[in-house]
């Protein structure tokens, strides 16, 4: 909260230190995502990818869950267009991120925005919203620092996983599959001061769980998110209709 004073008196911090502040924000995500990146590389090779293809996929898509789904379906010899459609379905939630974060990035030059949206992962979105919530202007240097801190290890470690996949010890014992939910819970909790946080969480939890049981993954994410977002819009008191649009 104290940081809001810095922005309000107009003195903008040096880009280099902002970049490193962003890198530090990315570090827990690197810890949480590393085992996942190594695992992705190892599984991709198991599913018929070359090491080069693993690195290319991580660099071009940069979306863990969708990449996992992609290699899994590819390994099952599903038609390529269906694999692509599934990647799209898994990543569909990002539409909400870009709609929401647009307000924070609008003051950047276009090329910076183009880069910014490329690295708009779950943690990138959540941390940028946190940054804005703490009264700071979301700066490109900070955002790029965090993006690079997550992107570079993601690409490198999936390559390492592809090369040394066989050497990975028991991934389950290391908690690999559950580290990201823990991290996401932490970010979720940090938004708890927001208006209607609890009803939104309750609605999204209920609908995503029901959708997970009925329509199945990955659409449960979009369905659950939509429920919370619609409820948030509905609960919010809005000034008289028709005054201004």
């Amino acid at each position, binding site marked *: 909260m104290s940081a809001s004073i810095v922005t309000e008196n107009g003195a903008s911090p040096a880009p280099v230190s902002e970049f490193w502040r962003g890198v530090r924000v990315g*570090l*827990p995500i690197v*810890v949480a995502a590393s085992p996942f990146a190594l695992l992705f590389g190892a599984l991709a090779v198991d599913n018929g990818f070359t090491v080069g*293809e693993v690195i*290319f996929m991580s660099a*071009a*898509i940069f979306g863990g869950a*969708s990449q996992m789904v*992609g290699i899994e379906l590819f390994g099952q010899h599903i038609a390529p267009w269906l*694999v*692509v459609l599934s*990647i799209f379905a898994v*990543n569909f*939630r*990002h*539409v*909400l991120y*870009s709609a*929401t*974060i647009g307000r924070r*990035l609008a003051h950047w030059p276009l090329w910076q*925005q183009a880069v910014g*949206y*490329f690295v708009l992962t779950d943690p990138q979105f959540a941390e940028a919203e946190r940054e804005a919530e703490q009264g700071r202007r979301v700066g490109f240097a900070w955002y790029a620092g965090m993006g690079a801190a997550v992107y570079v290890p993601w690409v490198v470690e999936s390559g390492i996983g592809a090369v040394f996949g066989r050497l990975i010890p028991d991934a389950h014992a*290391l*908690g690999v599959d*559950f*580290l990201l*939910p*823990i*991290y*996401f*819970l932490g970010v*979720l*909790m*940090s938004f708890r001061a*927001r208006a209607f946080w609890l009803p*939104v*969480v309750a*609605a*999204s*939890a209920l609908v*995503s*769980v029901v959708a*997970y049981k009925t329509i199945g*993954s990955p659409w449960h*994410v979009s*369905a*659950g*998110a939509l*429920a*919370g*977002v619609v*409820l*948030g*819009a509905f609960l919010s008191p*809005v*000034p008289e209709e028709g005054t*201004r*649009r």
Partner: protein
Amino acid sequence: MSDVFWITVAGAVVTYLTRIGGHLVLSRFERVHPRVEAALNAVPAAVLTTLVAPAMLTAGPAEWIAIVVAGIVSLRSGLLTMFLTGAAVLIALRQFMG
């Protein structure tokens, strides 16, 4: 070029479309209606919940205990402490509870 190459290229294109699409649609409007604004403010809580809740459904006691401990820690301390505590509890419990 191989199937993998084209799947990756197409997958990257559709992914980028989702990452910029919401902004491209919204930026066409001069003014954002307050209800839309309220909806956007609910996005972080809504989406993050959907990434946690279903994972709880398929989890077991080790994961539940870890997430409850992490949740309690998050009330008092920062994200990194919370995350490391949750991970430590999870890894410790998994050594003897599936």
